[in-house]
């Protein structure tokens, strides 16, 4: 592997980590408030569809993003209704939401676009374009030079390669996702809201008797989760790809959950975990079969590697990951 290839794999890692990271932070807010959420997958999927659908119809990716976020919020509200208001089983509610999203997206897509559960391909303003940093090599330079971006980058020096290929040129949502990490940390550990949110995931009765609404806090957390999942889904359909195809989340919600456990519910650790999983996915996508000397690792192993790693991490590396103590349990005052 030469230097440029490494840069490119890392570049791809960043693109693939972004939805994981957004979903992972989404789960972090929800679970820190004591609401387990295995419905991240479904929320992302719904957001992916609605963002692509609205972007396709209106031609505006921003309207798409708003629609995707809204769709995800609606599912969050449903999860909140089930697990906060009616104190239902959070795992089951999450499973139901995943089913619901997987069915309803295709159903509506077929109804609206009649393209076998897809949206039309997104063009121009209906997609997020890469942001080009100053002095980075981008399409305009390529046009001026009469060459391609990749050619120009291949000819440039290593610093410019890293700058142009790895750092510059991602969609705005990628930068947003990585900025969300310090922002989440700040909100959780430096604000009143964060204190209360963490408290309600540890001991809701303490929050309640301190005169703060448990239901309100938990709904707020679930809503933040919805927004972040919405952005993650919109990113998948309108930035990473150009349109919605069914089941396009492909298990990312579950990987994000695993990353969350790996990170022991902490924002910075979540970022590292997601980048690790993104890297594995990047490798699996780029290399069909990896040759180690005489031995060839079959492509199926590469495909399954992120999942295998999750199990290995859960089993051995994490140690005892103590989830928020009130996590998964509805807050019941009167039996």
């Amino acid at each position, binding site marked *: 592997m030469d230097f440029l290839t490494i840069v490119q794999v890392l570049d791809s890692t960043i693109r693939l980590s972004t939805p994981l990271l957004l979903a992972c932070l989404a789960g972090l807010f929800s679970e820190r408030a004591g609401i387990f959420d295995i419905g991240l997958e479904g929320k992302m999927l719904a957001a992916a569809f609605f963002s692509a659908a609205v972007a396709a119809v209106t031609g505006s990716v921003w309207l798409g993003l708003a629609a995707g976020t809204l769709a995800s919020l609606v599912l969050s509200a449903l999860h909140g209704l089930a697990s906060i208001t*009616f104190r*239902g089983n959070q*795992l*089951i509610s999450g*499973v139901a939401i995943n089913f619901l999203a997987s*069915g309803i997206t*295709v159903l509506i897509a077929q109804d609206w676009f009649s393209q076998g559960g897809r949206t039309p391909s997104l063009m121009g303003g209906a997609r997020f374009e890469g942001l080009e940093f100053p002095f980075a090599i981008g399409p305009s330079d390529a046009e001026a030079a009469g060459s391609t971006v990749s050619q120009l980058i291949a000819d440039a020096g290593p610093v410019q390669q890293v700058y142009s290929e790895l750092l510059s040129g991602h969609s705005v949502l990628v930068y947003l996702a990585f900025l969300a990490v310090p922002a989440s940390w700040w909100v959780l550990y430096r604000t009143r809201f964060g204190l209360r949110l963490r408290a309600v995931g540890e001991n809701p009765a303490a929050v309640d008797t301190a005169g703060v609404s448990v239901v309100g806090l938990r709904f707020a957390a679930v809503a933040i989760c919805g927004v972040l999942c919405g952005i993650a889904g919109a990113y998948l359909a309108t930035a990473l790809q150009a349109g919605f195809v069914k089941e396009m989340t492909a298990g990312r919600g579950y990987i994000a959950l695993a990353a969350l456990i790996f990170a022991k519910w902490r924002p910075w650790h979540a970022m590292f975990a997601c980048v690790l999983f993104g890297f594995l996915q990047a490798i699996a996508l780029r290399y069909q079969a990896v040759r180690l000397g005489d031995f060839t690792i079959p492509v199926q192993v590469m495909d*399954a590697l992120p999942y295998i790693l999750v199990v290995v991490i859960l089993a051995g590396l994490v140690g005892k990951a103590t989830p928020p103590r009130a996590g998964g349990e509805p807050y019941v005052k009167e039996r």
Partner: protein
Amino acid sequence: MDVMPKWAEVVLVPLISLLLAAILSALVILGIGEDPVAAVTLMVDGALGSTYGWGYTLYYATNFMFTGLAVAVAFHARLFNIGGEGQAMLGGLGVAIACLYVPWPHWSLALIAATISAGIFGAAWAALPAWLQAKRGSHIVITTIMFNFIAAAVLNYMLVTAMRPEGAMDPATERFAPAMHLPTLHELLAPLGIEFSKAAPANISLLVALAACVLVWVLIWRTRLGYEIRAYGHSENGARYAGISPVRITMIAMLISGGLAGMMAINNVMGEAERLVLNATEGAGFIGIAVALMGRSHPFGVFLASILFGFLYQGGAELALWTNIPRELIVVIQALVILFTGALDNMVRLPLERLFLALRRPTTTPQGK
């Protein structure tokens, strides 16, 4: 004193939940511009209107009985096994190995061998998540989901490299020998003079599934092991007090669960396709969750719910065949059923409890001992 009589808890709550799910489903059908009445008519007709329809409904129901029982057994030990899908896939591998590599003289022997092999493969696939849960506390929900993905990769590898016949393009095993052919309902009922569609895949596995329902009932409610499983499920501390080993129960319950899920393969792999293809499970592992929830983890409930979901599946296939309504409508209906019966059950239960309390209050106010 329970607030509600038992029959209300067991019958009324799921029934009303189901009704709510049905109403919402009808709204969804309306929402995509179709006629719910016509859709339901088509589904009922396609799934129950002919022996052909019944044959498919029962075929799917057989799958769901196995996976539903699998989820139910684990539920009794308070283990949420989402890995039925992967376990059933591996069960398929077990069936294929049993049927491809041993020249069984008669289908009955093959069926016994395949059932055992499928059970062992399914159980083996549940063993590691179970062990991780028991020993390391790794959340079984996450590990079983991961094992579903890994199972798909394993099956993929087996079908693409090891088991694909020479020269074939699609990743599937070759057909099992004709001797492995399981009697279909058509063949079973013909001697009794009952005409049953020849084309439908329902087969003798249905009887195995029914037997499994009975056996699971005996296991859970009549045996010492069942007593321990339920005790552990209700209270882990209680189990430790009584000397019921949490590790042992977790392992056993998950192995039984995985085994049941794996046994589904005798129906879809041996009984229907007669070869192993990719994605042979068609999501039945996940449907098992809904089936177990609806059936309140009771084998009889699982049986009823399986028929219901078999109907939905076959009806959904008919919809996809004859209308523009995509098959995913069924996924939505399933989602609503899970949501209302599993997660929003209190929405139904709380008002009902209030109702029963109001009906009863005047007679029981004076609290005696």
